[in-house]
């Protein structure tokens, strides 16, 4: 059984920390607009934001990591779309059904990402947690898991199973 650090409650979190956590999501929207031709820029900005803010406590770390993780597949999907479009145009290939299907899927992913990030930002500003599907659990696991001292794994005795 894995142990986790206790979660802070909204009244225990400083306003400045809540704002930094909210910033992790809002910063994405700003870079997204800038990064449309080169989606990879968003990811670079997300990584920088994570490293700059990761010393500000676990609450900020959780939100920045959740935002960063959810950004990775969206960026890859967007990059794939840009690459596919350029290849089709340069090589004069057909825009097949698979392409249009992919386009719809990427649009859906961006929309979901946008809505979740917006809700995440509002919740973070209130000092609350908000768990995205998959990325929320992953970020929580990464940030709140209690790691053994010194980073070494400790062997533990367990009682026999039922």
């Amino acid at each position, binding site marked *: 059984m894995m142990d986790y650090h206790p979660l802070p409650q909204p009244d225990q979190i400083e306003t400045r920390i809540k704002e930094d956590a909210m910033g992790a999501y809002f910063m994405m929207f700003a870079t997204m607009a800038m990064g449309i031709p080169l989606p990879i820029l968003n990811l670079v900005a997300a990584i920088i934001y994570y490293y700059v803010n990761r010393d500000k406590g676990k609450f900020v770390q959780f939100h920045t990591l959740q935002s960063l993780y959810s950004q990775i597949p969206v960026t890859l999907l967007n990059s794939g779309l840009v690459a596919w479009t350029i290849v089709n145009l340069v090589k004069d*290939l057909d825009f097949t059904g698979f392409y*249009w*299907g992919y386009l719809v899927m990427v649009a859906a992913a961006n929309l979901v990402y946008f809505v979740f990030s917006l809700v995440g930002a509002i919740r973070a500003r209130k000092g609350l947690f908000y768990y995205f599907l*998959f990325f929320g659990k992953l970020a929580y*696991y990464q940030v709140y898991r209690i790691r053994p001292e010194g980073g070494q794994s400790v062997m533990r005795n367990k009682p026999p199973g039922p």
Partner: protein
Amino acid sequence: MQKAILRDLLVLLGVFGLIWMLFSLFSYPEDPQLLSIQKEEVLGEAYVDLILLNPLFREYENSMVDSAVGVIGERLLEGLPDTEYSYHFEVFDSEMINAFTVPGGNILISTGLIGFCDTPEELAAVIAHEMGHVEERHVISRLIKELGIEILSSGDPYVIGEISSLLTSTSFDRRQEEEADSFAAELLEATSIEPRTLASFFRKLEKEMDNELLNQFAFISTHPNFYSRIRDALLYVPGDEFTTRSIDLNWEEIRAGL
């Protein structure tokens, strides 16, 4: 927790994978299966009749040439025993070097092209390429994509006339040309004609690229990607048991009679 993370990941992949697949199927308006081959053949016949009424594509009547094209066509059809199309090869009188495909298995060949080919095998390579467009249903796909199935299946004579003039200048995209080249190489091999004839014919066209008589030849419409087609044709290696059998025609006499 790790299990829950993995489960969430699978849910995400499943949902987005499903969206991709569903919308891929939804957006296939150019699916040639929407038009049956029987319907395509009926329409094709009407298109050919109208095209041959055009003075630029008037029917060429010369029994020796018709018979030579027939011999080449028959030879190629030996390699296509299961085809659903009944092919028609029409020769039209034009000094332009040209050949094109009309729906329903109709292939139109100019006298200019016949004169340009040094051997019957070269003409066979071009016809095999056009048969590739027929078998892969490229023409009908393109028409459905550009005009829509409603217009295409319309029996209105005006619409048929408009489509006929479109067909004489229809070009294909690179993928379709490559598919037709690859089909042609296999068909030539299956009928004991050297498949790399296609490459030597490409090289000949390459030297003549400035020739105005080639302007309407859709066969080379994918220039400047033309060189990769030469390379692909040269890279085609026939099987170990492949032997060539020449097409038994007095080609010089046929060309002289044009």
